[in-house]
């Protein structure tokens, strides 16, 4: 067998899941999950026990699909999961270290198991260990690695065979803040600059915001929502913090005429505008002029002789949206 025997369908880079149902016992863990992904950073969010890891295992072909279909890199996972795995990298949350081996030995070993020639695997193991920042520790037995080093080692082993997709299960689990940032930087680099598809399973919203363009939200085995990470900034309902002086009553009436909801928070007025009701805000199907809300408030202030000291759009955090979804 030659190195080129690793057969990955480079033309097909997508992951397609169609009405996936799965359960380890009679209790279903995944219920009718359907989605399709193109390469890029994708966050898989959900509370504990929502089926994130199980979904990743289905995508890897480690558990059999009971009903529905999973197609990864052009391979039906019920038929040719092994071929698909040539193009997939997996970083498990727990364990994932084979004791008694050096870092470079472990990564090269797993490279060989992926079908790489021994010398290529060893050479590549050195490269990816440099990339993840373990160059100086690569000859040490991995049993003695710190938690942060183990996470990096697991990332390295998932990269050694140059996969097209990386499935990362809680990659920042157990890391100190600095270690977390550096691991997220690596993942972001892979997803944004190196052309790898990354599915990041986590319950840490900040990790998803740092790395992903898109999120899938799971709850109790069901795909609850799918949206882009910065979709919040493109929602028609926008909240503004307003502070000023002058004829506040007229200003409030003007805003009410725009359909705005007004609340008070300390000295601030919290103005919630629905851009659907603002003239000239629409900029296409589901698109709004980002400046439309600000311009509308400025217009009302000018016409009501109200001097603005502060006008700032309050960002909608991913956390707010996530909790709204999950708790809904």
């Amino acid at each position, binding site marked *: 067998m030659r190195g080129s025997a690793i057969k990955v369908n480079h033309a097909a880079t997508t992951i397609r899941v169609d009405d996936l149902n799965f359960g380890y016992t009679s209790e279903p863990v995944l219920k009718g999950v359907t989605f399709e992904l193109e390469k890029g950073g994708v966050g898989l969010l959900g509370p504990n026990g929502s089926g994130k890891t199980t979904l990743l295992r289905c995508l890897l072909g480690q558990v059999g699909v009971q009903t529905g279909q999973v197609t990864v890199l052009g391979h039906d996972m019920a038929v040719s999961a092994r071929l698909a795995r040539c193009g997939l990298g997996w970083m498990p949350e727990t364990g994932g270290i084979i004791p*008694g081996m050096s870092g470079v030995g472990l990564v090269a070993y797993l490279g060989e198991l992926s079908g790489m020639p021994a010398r290529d695997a060893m050479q590549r193991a050195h490269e990816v260990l440099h990339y993840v920042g373990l160059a100086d520790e690569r000859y040490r037995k991995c049993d003695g690695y710190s938690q942060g080093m183990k996470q990096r080692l697991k990332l390295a082993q998932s990269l050694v065979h140059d996969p097209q997709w990386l499935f990362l299960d809680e990659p920042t689990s157990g890391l100190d803040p600095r270690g977390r940032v550096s691991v997220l930087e690596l993942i972001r680099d892979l997803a944004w600059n190196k052309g790898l598809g990354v599915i990041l399973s986590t319950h840490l919203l900040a990790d998803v915001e740092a790395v992903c363009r898109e999120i899938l939200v799971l709850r109790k085995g069901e795909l609850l929502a799918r949206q882009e990470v910065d979709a919040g900034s493109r929602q028609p309902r926008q909240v503004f913090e307003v502070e000023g002086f002058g004829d506040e009553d007229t200003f409030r009436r003007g805003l009410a005429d725009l359909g705005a909801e007004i609340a008070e928070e300390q000295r601030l007025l919290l103005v919630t505008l629905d851009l659907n009701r603002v003239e000239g805000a629409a900029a296409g199907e589901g698109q709004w002029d980002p400046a439309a809300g600000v311009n509308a408030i400025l217009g009302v202030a000018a016409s009501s002789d109200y001097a603005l000291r502060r006008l700032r759009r309050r960002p909608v955090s991913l956390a707010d949206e996530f909790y709204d979804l999950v708790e809904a």
Partner: protein
Amino acid sequence: MPVYDRGYTHWQPSDRRSYPAWWVIARRGIVQPWKTKGMLTLLLILLVASWVPAIVKGGIVYFKLKAGDMVDLVGGSWTSIEPEGFLNYLDKQHFFVFVIMAIVGAGLVATDRRDNGLSLYFSRPLGLRSYVLGKTLILLFYYALVTFVPALALCIFAYLIAPDAVGIDLLLLTPLRLLVFCALTGTSMSLVLLAFSCLGKRSIFIMVWWTVMVTGTKTLGAIAGALNKGALQLLDFMGQYDNAGTFIFGADATLEVSRFLSLAVVLGWTGLAIWVLRSRIKPVEVVA
């Protein structure tokens, strides 16, 4: 450009040869025990000790062939260069087989289970068969080191000093018998030990179970033999292999039970081991 300036680069497959996963697993498993001083010392002592009987038998065979009747003093089938003499020799190697397989094999699957290694293995393009084949070959290698290899060396030595009449037998038939017997027995024992190994997560417990299995059933078999309870000898785990192996060596049964029954028991153990391996080795452990 040095690697630390290059960042992440995509791999360009070369024309070098790559090996199947089972070969990679077997090679690593065979080499790994030699990398720690303690294991290296233990294995060397065991291997040297396991070759002592072969050297002693070689010496006796030499004197028997050269000095004729004088060696009637050390008679018995153990010193024979007939096929059953080699079977007898393999029977006496059971202790070394038991110890070396326990040391090398107890943790083969248990450690992977303990450290979530199975998840890593099965995230690669390999299946259960490749994994089990690789692990079985590790055990077969060490099994052969204490059985087939010294027996074959004895065979060649006996051929070199034997009269022409028995030469062909020693050169062709006996090695073939040894090969078939050791391959079948070694594979079956390896599968049984692997099945034990995948039932736990700590090597030490697997070793204890293996010890109970081998020595306990041996003791029961011996007691049964002494009490003339032939059927109970079926409990002797390792004894069944030799009794069934008499087919291959054309020798008389070594136990008081039918060779067919022994063969059935061996096949039963092997089938059970395969069933256990299939049901226990999974990338995902479900705790009900």
